[in-house]
């Protein structure tokens, strides 16, 4: 490619153009995009289908089955033919069987089992069912129909799926047969094209919807959302809707925000701060529509599509923060019990702490501290080796006596010391009971840990005024 040059183009221009081309090719062929977003979309749409089948189960024959043949001429107007006629047989039993099968397929889709095969099957079932009643179809049916088609070309199982688990296990056993797959370049291309297609479809929905709205006088004068909130067919919670739509400013802001968020949606995605605004705003709008206008399934269909615009790195960050927490809750119990036994055993073996085991260092002059620790020791199942800093050779831990006087320290070999609230968090995390472990893990979360540090500092500053406290207890922090 580099050999071809256009006359009149400088080398710099050509290099810039060629660089863009390479960038674009890299985006298309080298990796799959929005893998987390599409996995979440899969879960949400799976739940949507199961939810819809669930709430309509009792009236399924009245809505889509033999009880609904009175609207057959309208079904004809829709124009759907095979293969989208799976629900048009006149046998109630066959209809129910297909209905239940569809619920099962939706469950498999949610769990991410063989998604490449299950997705088109779910699409055909979805269209077959919803086209059977065009009178009470809602916009969400159309959204799911269109987006499921694009999703047939994407990899929906990268995360949180049985497919992903199977692939991980297969990779651990190299002897097992490889899965059938397109070459990576092709697979990535189709996946990314599907992402683009979903995005374009969402843009068309929002922008076209806003363009219709800006023609309306009620959207222009900022009162439009008041009206559907007071129509009985949308108004599930009249008290709530009455309160929310009473104030002219609330109604005005909500009306204008819905128009502008939709109209400018594609452009707001271009930079990170505006993207956050757009996604939080539009998802908030849909939560509002779902509850206040009683359109939960339509709302979910849009929220599901919106999540593809959250970047993989954001999801990965959230996942890395929450995964240890979840894994701990699930598997931690046995592991921690074993660790507890080992520690107890080690404690019986020798006296006096050494630098090879964990130790909780506190201020031995502080009556309040001593009382607090004693009280906790009574309540907690496992208790670490504790030692007042006054009786320790702090040099072997690499901390100063000032550090130790300022806050309780959790020392673990090979790890930086944990001070104050973080030391408490570690103490809780070492407990065999789930409730304490969960508390400890939550205390270590960003935000909460900062808050905890502030609380610790505040208590510490006033510890000489607290029960058990003497003036000897006065923290060096109190002077500041």
């Amino acid at each position, binding site marked *: 490619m580099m050999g071809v040059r256009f006359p009149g183009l400088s080398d710099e221009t050509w290099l810039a153009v060629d660089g863009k081309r390479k960038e674009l090719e890299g985006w298309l062929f080298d990796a799959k995009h929005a893998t987390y977003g599409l996995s979440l979309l899969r879960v949400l749409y799976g739940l949507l289908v199961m939810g819809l089948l669930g709430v309509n189960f009792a009236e399924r024959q009245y809505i889509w089955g033999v009880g609904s043949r009175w609207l057959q001429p309208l079904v004809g107007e829709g124009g759907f033919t095979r293969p989208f006629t799976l629900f048009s047989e006149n046998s109630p039993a066959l209809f129910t069987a297909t209905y239940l099968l569809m619920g099962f397929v939706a469950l498999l889709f949610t769990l991410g089992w063989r998604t490449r095969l299950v997705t088109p099957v779910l699409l055909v079932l979805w269209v077959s069912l919803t086209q059977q009643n065009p009178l009470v179809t809602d916009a969400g049916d159309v959204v799911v129909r269109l987006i499921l088609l694009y999703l047939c070309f994407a990899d929906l199982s990268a995360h949180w799926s049985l497919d992903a688990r199977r692939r991980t296990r297969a990779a651990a056993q190299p002897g097992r047969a490889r899965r059938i797959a397109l070459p990576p370049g092709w697979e990535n291309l189709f996946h990314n094209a599907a992402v683009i297609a979903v995005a374009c479809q969402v843009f068309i929905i929002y922008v076209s919807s806003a363009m219709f709205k800006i023609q309306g006088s009620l959207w222009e004068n900022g009162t439009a959302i008041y*009206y559907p909130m007071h129509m009985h067919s949308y108004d599930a919670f009249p008290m709530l809707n009455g309160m929310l739509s009473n104030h002219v400013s609330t109604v005005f802001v909500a009306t204008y925000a819905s128009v502008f968020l939709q109209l400018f949606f594609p452009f707001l995605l271009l930079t990170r701060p505006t993207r956050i605004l757009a996604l939080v705003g539009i998802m908030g709008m849909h939560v509002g529509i779902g509850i206040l206008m009683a359109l939960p399934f339509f709302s979910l269909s849009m929220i599901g599509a919106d999540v593809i615009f959250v970047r993989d790195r954001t999801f990965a960050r959230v996942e890395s923060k929450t995964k240890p927490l979840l894994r701990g809750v699930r598997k931690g119990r046995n592991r921690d019990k074993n660790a507890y036994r080992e520690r107890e055993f080690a404690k019986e073996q020798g006296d006096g702490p050494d630098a090879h085991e964990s130790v909780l260092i506190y201020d031995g002059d502080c009556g309040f501290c001593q009382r607090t620790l004693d009280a906790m020791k009574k309540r907690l199942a496992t208790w670490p080796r504790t030692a007042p800093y006054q009786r320790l050779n702090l040099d072997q831990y690499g901390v100063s006596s000032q550090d130790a006087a300022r806050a309780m320290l959790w020392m673990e070999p090979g790890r930086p010391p944990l001070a104050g609230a973080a030391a408490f968090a570690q103490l809780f995390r070492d407990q065999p009971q789930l409730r304490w472990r969960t508390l400890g893990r939550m205390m270590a979360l960003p935000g909460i840990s900062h808050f905890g540090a502030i609380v610790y500092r505040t208590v510490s500053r006033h510890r000489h005024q607290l029960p058990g406290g003497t003036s000897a207890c006065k923290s060096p922090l109190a002077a500041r």
Partner: protein
Amino acid sequence: MECSPVRQAPAIEKQLRETVFRRSAWVRGAAIILALALSFHFAATALWVSPAAPLYDALAPVLTPYMQPFFQQGWSLFAPNPYQGDHTFLLRARLTDRSTGQLRTSDWVDVTRREWSGILHNPLHPRSDLYTDGLYSILNDDRDNLIDKQASICERDYSHSGWDQLLADLSAQKGADPDWLESYVRHERVAAAFATQYAYALWGPDVEAVQIRIGYTPVPNFEDRAGQDAQPTSVFTSFGWRPTVVFDGQSQKYFAEAVQGGHR
């Protein structure tokens, strides 16, 4: 980082091979074809969902077969203006009294009001609670497109002369679009088929004819929202008596179960 060319060379070679493999001429060609296909698809979609435009009219013969049925969509949601009132659907029936053979007329039943009770406090209501909202829409949209003379024909009794006569009488008026009128009568028959089933469910099999009327009750204007005493007045549009309609495969049992068993 320490650079050891001997050790890195195979890795680089492998990476290069993979990159070249990923970007073969075939896959690049496929990318161009996909780009063209998606461009066409979304250009067509954008035009299809746009407010009416001369360009749309010009391209409709190409667009329609492509977009329908699978890509059929429209996104004028609550727009240009949202509805500003409640839609109701009422029906009554002419019944034969079995003992005397006399005809009697039932009271009006407000089906919509029964459906509302299912929506109240339950956003997860079955979608059949919006049946009459849908029926109102198709009937009202159709009626709006009729000229005055045709509208008055719709109010006449066709329970004996039937649907073909209704279509013939409507078509006899000047300025009638035959396709439109056919669709109008089709929709009226759907509404009558619903009313027939409903009447069977409420009053049993002795239904001779059904009649429908649709009502519109405005929500108070935003400016008048505080006004407690101003009871909004409903506007009704009536349709004349129609013969009962039952389409092939219709199960009266399942319809009646839903009407009697549920909150309807």
